[in-house]
């Protein structure tokens, strides 16, 4: 149940969506599973974040049918989102590398 580093939720959402379109619950589940339950996304942050990304045009929302045949809103990465994801992951890589270096040397 780790707290998400601020500003990383957007990146994680984009990353999950880079694989395939997904609905909100799916995104949360995916993040939880891949992180082996270390990261859990709260609904209270997830949906506002999704909607914000949609408004910014980084993801597109579309109503579709879920795996259990229910109407669900699916989110997919847009081209703009893909570019943002590339930028963000690069930034993140640099940041974590820098933190690691500091932790190992000093």
């Amino acid at each position: 149940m780790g707290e998400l580093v601020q500003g990383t939720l957007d990146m994680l959402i984009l990353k999950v969506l880079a694989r395939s379109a997904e609905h909100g619950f799916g995104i949360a589940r995916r993040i939880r599973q891949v992180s082996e339950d270390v990261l859990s996304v709260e609904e209270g942050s997830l949906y506002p974040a999704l909607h914000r990304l949609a408004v910014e045009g980084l993801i597109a929302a579309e109503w579709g049918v879920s795996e259990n045949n229910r109407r669900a809103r699916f989110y997919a990465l847009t081209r703009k989102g893909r570019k943002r994801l590339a930028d963000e992951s690069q930034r993140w890589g640099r940041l974590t590398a820098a933190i690691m270096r500091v932790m190992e040397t000093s």
Partner: protein
Amino acid sequence: VKRLKALLFRRRLDRDLKEELAFHFDMAERELRADGISAEEAHYEARRRFGNGTRIRERSREIFSFVYLEALWRDLQYGCRGLRRNRVMAAVGIVSLAAGIGANTTAYSLIDSLILHDVTAREPERLVRFNGLSYPNYRELRATSVFDGLAAFSPASLNWRQGEESHSIFTLIVTANFFELLGAEPAIGRVFTESDARAEKDPRVVVLGYRFWERYLNGDPHAVGRALNLNGSLFTVVAVMPKQYRSIMGLGISPDAFLPMGAALKPRMYERTFSMLIPVGRLLHGRTREQTRDALTAALRGLEEAYPDDNRNLGRPQPLIPATGLDRAKAMSGDAPLLFFSGILSCVVAVLLLIACANVAGLLLARAAGRQREIAIRLALGAGRGRLFQQFLIESAILAAAGCALGIVLTFWAASAFARIRLPIAVPVGFTFVPNVRLLAFTAALGFLATFLCGLAPALGFARPRLASDLTARSASAMSKLRLRSFLVAGQIAACAVLLIAALLFLQNLHRIVNTDPGFDTAHTITVSVQPNGAAENTAAMRDEMRGALQNAPGVEAVSSLAYFPLNWEYWEPRVRRADGPATSWFHVYGQPVGPGYLATMRIPLIAGREFYETDLRNRGDNPALINETFAREHFGALNPVGRVLKIDRGRGIEGSLIIVGVARNTKFRSLGNASVPLLYTLESG
């Protein structure tokens, strides 16, 4: 575009959000059940994890739409509805705020009009005025380079004859360069200039003040070119000054007309001792008042040396008074009462605004107390505290806005009422009201601030409510609000008490003043003011003739004449000394030239000697004089002054003699509030 769409399809968006979240909830529950948790428990667990669904929806909506604006709009509507439901409370709040704000802006406008506002001129801060000069001295001073420009004016009452009627009008007799120096532009026509109205040409033109033009010439657009009969000569109107023109006199004094100096109006203008001009100078660029003052003193000393007889003491250093604004009022000692009055007025209206604010705060608190349950319910339903806070502030803002708007209306109304007032004094004073944007903004800000503070109190109170207790009944939290309310009420009562006491004191003063015995009979005396123009001997003859005619009129007991009415701020202050004292023992007294029978007419008791007789007029050589008790006590002590001789300074080193023939009881002379001053009655000469 997306947001705009969202605004338009709000309902659909809401439904979508709800469905999305429901789906999520459903999935979460299903997942928990798959983990082997009972249906009921899974439901609650999902519910618990999910948190406040409404809140999530609201936050998402905020992203999609102008939810903030929407909320504001709805709060505004809700606030208006609430206030409509509480009409009495809203009305009381708005009216008290309006009264507070209106009183403040009106008082400020009044003070601004009388004291603070600059006179109409180019760079008025560079203008200074100083003590009186005669026309010849003025001409010579102008030729020096003390100032960047020098003009002069002299207030004068002129007779304006219109058909069979004659009005006394208040004018400024000005040097021909007056308007050029000040840089004031007329509304109609063209003001006279140095080249076309030189005093030596004895110019017969006149520039009218706006009020005079509007009132007496009915705002005639073709006024330019008309001839006015002033003091028996015809003057051609060349211009009308604008409505907002503030004359160099300051204090809201608005002369009826401006006339160029000339022999027709100032027969004695070429006498060097006739120091009736008030000079206005423009400081040289980069020169301070102090530097100019030194240069001026040097120049005037030069004039004194050139004409030692006529210009005695002219070179004495004297202050340069700024021509405009608050500096001027501070420099003019005579304006002190006006400043004092302005200060008092400001305090009174400020207290009034405080009371109004406290009033509104009390009302808002009362209303808040009545809404405790409503607030608790809204909180329970998941309303954000920020939203509630906003709601309170918006309600205050509605009140403040309405109050300010009404206050501004009140200000305009009061100002136009003031502008119509004509004070019953010889000098026309007009309140030139200019709505002061800065002031309105300031007062409105004050009103808003006050209401926000008022609105904040209840809002803060509800930011940490005890939900359950508030839902069910009144709670202890009401106690703190009660305390705040009683504090407000106490403050209000205190402020009201202060104002009431002040008002009572003023009333008592007024009552005392009205009942002050001025020392003469005001109940049975009537006065007529006559402004003769013409040669002095004709004037004297006319006056004596009038006196004789009135003496025989039925119901008239006694008739006399005098030059200045007492208690009317008009003084003659001659320099006198006792003839039997040293030649340097001059002192100033107040002088009042009167006709025969003055004491009897005014019913001023005679203490010793006699008063002026008709026969005194024929034996002018004797120069009889009367003095009052204070004069006798201060300068003769225990001696009997009757029969003693006074020397009077007649200027240019000439001394006249006066024989004291009687002592009169003290009367009020300067004002009803002043103690008795030494007073000298002379026989009115002509």
